[in-house]
């Protein structure tokens, strides 16, 4: 569904992402991990269009999107959440969803959906997501006033509200306790079972190993391992990246 081909992004002399080849298959949950500074966030920004690649391509559903603007990529079915929450703080929960929903209501198809099948179809889907996120009772609350966990849920359903087929989740578990992480685990699975594909960037190893079908590991902008969670855990290079080699390992 998503292919990164020989993707590179340099900032001056720093190669944040270096000749990265990555494939995300339809319907899977792919984890992207790596030590800090390994290029995970840069990769997400390259996929969503915040950065343009120095070299290489980003191909989504067979279409080269390397040069498209972020909102155009969202229209094609790509959505993301942010590491530090970026909600529209002074809009209500419902309005946050609605703002994302509007990308589906453009053009002729959008016109039909809004006026002919009734605004209901779009509304229904947004309402469903609201329930899914356990935020129905807070729909008129300003997003900035929600509790932290609720804000994270809103980020999640807002990304889903844009009708995206591929969701990029950027460290959604940051700052969560064990209970919340388990909740997140279930939600991610549900989102996938509803027909989406998920690319999960995370530091919480337990979550990654639990929920992901496959995992890719980055270090210094390059992919050093790829496979099932079990395979990756055994990989020598991955261990070296995280734990250091014998001379420097603490354990």
């Amino acid at each position, binding site marked *: 569904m998503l292919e990164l081909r020989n993707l590179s992004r340099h900032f001056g002399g720093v190669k944040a992402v270096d000749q990265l080849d990555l494939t995300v298959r339809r319907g899977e949950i792919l984890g992207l991990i790596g030590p800090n500074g390994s290029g995970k966030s840069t990769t997400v920004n390259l996929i969503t269009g915040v950065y343009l690649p120095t070299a290489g391509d980003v191909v989504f559903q067979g279409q080269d999107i390397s040069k498209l603007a972020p*909102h155009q990529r969202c229209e094609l079915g790509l959505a993301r959440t942010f590491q530090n929450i970026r909600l*529209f*703080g002074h809009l209500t929960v419902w*309005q946050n969803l609605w703002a994302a929903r509007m990308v589906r209501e453009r053009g002729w198809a959008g016109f039909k959906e809004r006026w002919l099948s009734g605004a209901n179809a779009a509304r229904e889907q947004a309402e469903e997501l609201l329930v899914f996120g356990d935020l129905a009772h807070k729909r008129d609350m300003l997003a*900035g006033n929600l509790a932290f966990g609720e804000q994270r849920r809103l980020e999640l359903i807002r990304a889903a509200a844009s009708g995206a087929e591929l969701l990029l989740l950027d460290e959604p578990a940051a700052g969560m306790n064990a209970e919340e992480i388990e909740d997140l685990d279930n939600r991610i699975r549900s989102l996938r079972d509803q027909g989406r594909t998920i690319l999960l960037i995370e530091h919480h190893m337990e979550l990654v190993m639990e929920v992901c079908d496959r995992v890719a590991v980055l270090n210094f902008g390059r992919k050093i391992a790829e496979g099932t969670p079990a395979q990756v855990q055994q990989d020598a290079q991955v261990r070296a990246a995280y734990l250091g080699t014998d001379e420097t390992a603490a354990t």
Partner: protein
Amino acid sequence: MDFYLGLAQVIGIHSLLGLSAWCVLHTGQVSLAQGGFFAIGAYTAGVLTSMWGWPLALALAVGALLAAAVAVAVGFPALRVKGLMLVVATTAFAEIVRLVFFNFTWRVQTPAGPVGPDGSLGFGGIRYFPANGWTTLEVCLLIWALVSAVLLVLWWLDRSRVGTLWRAVGEDELAAQSAGINLTAAKVSAFGIGGAIAGLAGGVFAHYATHIEHNNFSILLATFAIAYPIIGGLSSLAGTILAVIFIQGFLLEGLRFIGDWRSLMFGVLIVVVMLVRPGGFLNQSLGVSLGLRRGGSPNKAGSIGKGGTHA
């Protein structure tokens, strides 16, 4: 009585200016270009009625439309930059407009003598109102009818999907983009609508003042225009109107008490208001983080968190 009607007229026109700035500020852009659109509307409407004999309604409409068209044309390149650069770009645009009109001469012969813009001498003889027997009261009512109409339109827009889109863009551009919102379309549309309102205000101003010149359209006017929504509180339309009433009332009434010093007091007043109530009168300020950062990088949602900013 005439004095108060005159005051009401000025308040009305400045309200329109303030509302025009409100649109643009809502999407998080600081624009000092409203003076330029005001000028375009003024000269266009003036030319149409006094030189070509058009009816007022049509002339005002065309003035507003032309201003909107220019706003959209200028908006596309200008709105690609943010923060300080946008301030400077819009300032530069407004200055260009002012200077163009400063050098603009086009006169036609009418039975009453030559009429038309005359370069640095300005554009006099816009005598539609007196020639057609409008009283001060009627002009005042017209102005306020327009203000009400614009208020209604903006209120409706704000409640509709357009308003949500504008505010989302104003809140966090990066998040808005990633949620599929076309930033340029949102910003340019706000800019265009703001331009139309300013153009409308300009057209009416030209007729009520009967003589306009480049000095009327300086950067200072633009700073007044953005002062109203900022001081009034960005999230409410009423706040802008209140701010206009307060400020213009102060300035004009103040003439009686402190005479020539009123502009100075006005400056001081602004400083004081910002210190005391930085979010504006009707608070609940839209956490408009304008991207006024080095290099124009996207803003961070700094005001988000438990509690938000509420009065």
